[in-house]
């Protein structure tokens, strides 16, 4: 299949947004979207880790193909992602304390963010080459960040709203996510 890079990006970012169409990374989407500043930093962290783990996943996939052991895919993905995140955390801590302060607390959370693992699995399943994988990771990360920040903006408004007592908490977030998901359906067919 010939998928242009722009199509891959738009598809991962808007049309099939990881959060709103694939339900990946819902936990941080609900957990870290209370405040715009936090949300955008989290988005940045996720985007960064996505890029790194996309590269790793590409390498692992090549290696597993070479030794013909597809059954090790999942286990090596999760192990590598977890250790990459640790490594990234240490590197950032060492070289940019400012960045670490901004992203630090989110990095461990990202390990169990299914969007990262999902990205690795999808790019492998779709058979993307190296550049395509990078673009895909970038698009997915951008899409995740967009959804997260929009949600944070709305939630900051909802914090000072007269919402009925029963909907406060996760219920109203899910309702907003539903409407957002419908809104993103407007992008369908873009980039073809």
């Amino acid at each position, binding site marked *: 299949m010939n998928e242009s890079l722009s199509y891959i990006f738009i598809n991962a970012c808007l049309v099939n947004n990881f959060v709103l169409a694939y339900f990946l990374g819902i936990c941080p989407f609900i957990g870290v979207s209370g405040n715009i500043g936090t949300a955008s930093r989290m988005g940045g962290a996720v985007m960064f880790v996505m890029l790194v783990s996309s590269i790793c996943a590409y390498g692992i996939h090549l290696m597993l193909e070479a030794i013909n052991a597809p059954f090790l895919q999942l286990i090596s993905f999760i192990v590598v992602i977890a250790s990459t995140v640790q490594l990234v955390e240490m590197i950032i801590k060492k070289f940019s304390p400012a960045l670490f302060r901004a992203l630090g607390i989110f990095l461990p959370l990202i390990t169990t963010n299914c969007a990262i693992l999902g990205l690795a699995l999808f790019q492998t399943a779709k058979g993307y080459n190296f550049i395509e994988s990078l673009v895909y990771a970038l698009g997915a990360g951008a899409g995740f960040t967009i959804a997260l920040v929009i949600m944070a903006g709305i939630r900051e408004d909802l914090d*000072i709203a007269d919402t009925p007592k029963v909907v406060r908490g996760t219920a109203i977030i899910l309702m907003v996510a539903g409407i957002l998901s419908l809104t993103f359906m407007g992008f369908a067919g873009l980039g073809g």
Partner: protein
Amino acid sequence: MVMSIFLEPFPASGQTVDPGAPCKVDSATPAEIINAIQEAGIVGLGGAAFPTHVKLKIPKDKSVDTLIINGVECEPYLTTDHRVMLEQQDDIFMGIRYILKATGARRVIIGIEANKADAIISLQERAPYDLPVTIEAVKVKYPQGAEKMLITALLAREVPSGGLPADCGCVVVNVATTAEIGRLLPLGRGIIERSITITGPGVKKRGNYLIPIGTPLRYALEQAGLKKNATRVILGGPMMGFTVSSLDVPITKGTSGLLVLTDKESQSTIRKEYACIGCSHCLDACPIFLNPSRMGRLAKFEQYDIMEKEYNLMDCFECGSCSYVCPSNIPLVHYFRVAKGIIRDKKAAA
């Protein structure tokens, strides 16, 4: 009962005015002039009653190049400044001489609303040639009489957030205050009376009255005559004034007007409150470009910290424009006053 100090004259006293030492503009030093103003007890007569000698004492690290005489009525309904400008021109110019000397400013601008042509003309005619004074007409709109607004209108300068007019090189004095300085200082007297606008739909004889400070409202209003349906008596103007619960309240130096409203106006201001619909009328109305809509919502949910830190709550000078235009009848200014009070208390406690 309102907290007041009641003075009774000593029956055996002669009841004569005992003048102090006169202060001559030619011979006095700036410090002496400021001292004389303090002795005379002169405060801002526009309504804020801020001690004038404090205002004129320019901090050492700042300098002032322009003196602005505020001839703009601070609120609708009030006309005292207008009367002063028509009747006390010489006192005004004498006062300017004192203030110029006290502050070291080099030029004077008198700002007057454009619809008061008579005041502009009469001041221009009587302006002494040796004074660097210009008279400028400004647009008629509320709250043009606020210090910050007038500075921006005349000089295109802005007073920094949390700062004073001296921070942008000017000092603003109300025209009535200036006149009082010019009238009292040469004689060495203190301030014992002021002119007050008594007006409103609930008053029979509307007009400007010269009333001794300390007179109970009851007495002043009896002279002007109250209508039967009067319900609300306001010290000051309609936008920023305070209602009083008792007519035993005395007139103070800061009382620029007495406004009496009737049932009719009361009802029109007590209307059902809706939720904010984000019409943005208050943003358009706010003279200093705050976001009253958002702050109102934040105040309702007691998020005072955010109001202060992200929305510049403390810059609000409570002009009341936002509450006036709000179609949802949200008492925005009231919310802001409460919020400011709470924040100040918190800071004081910390």
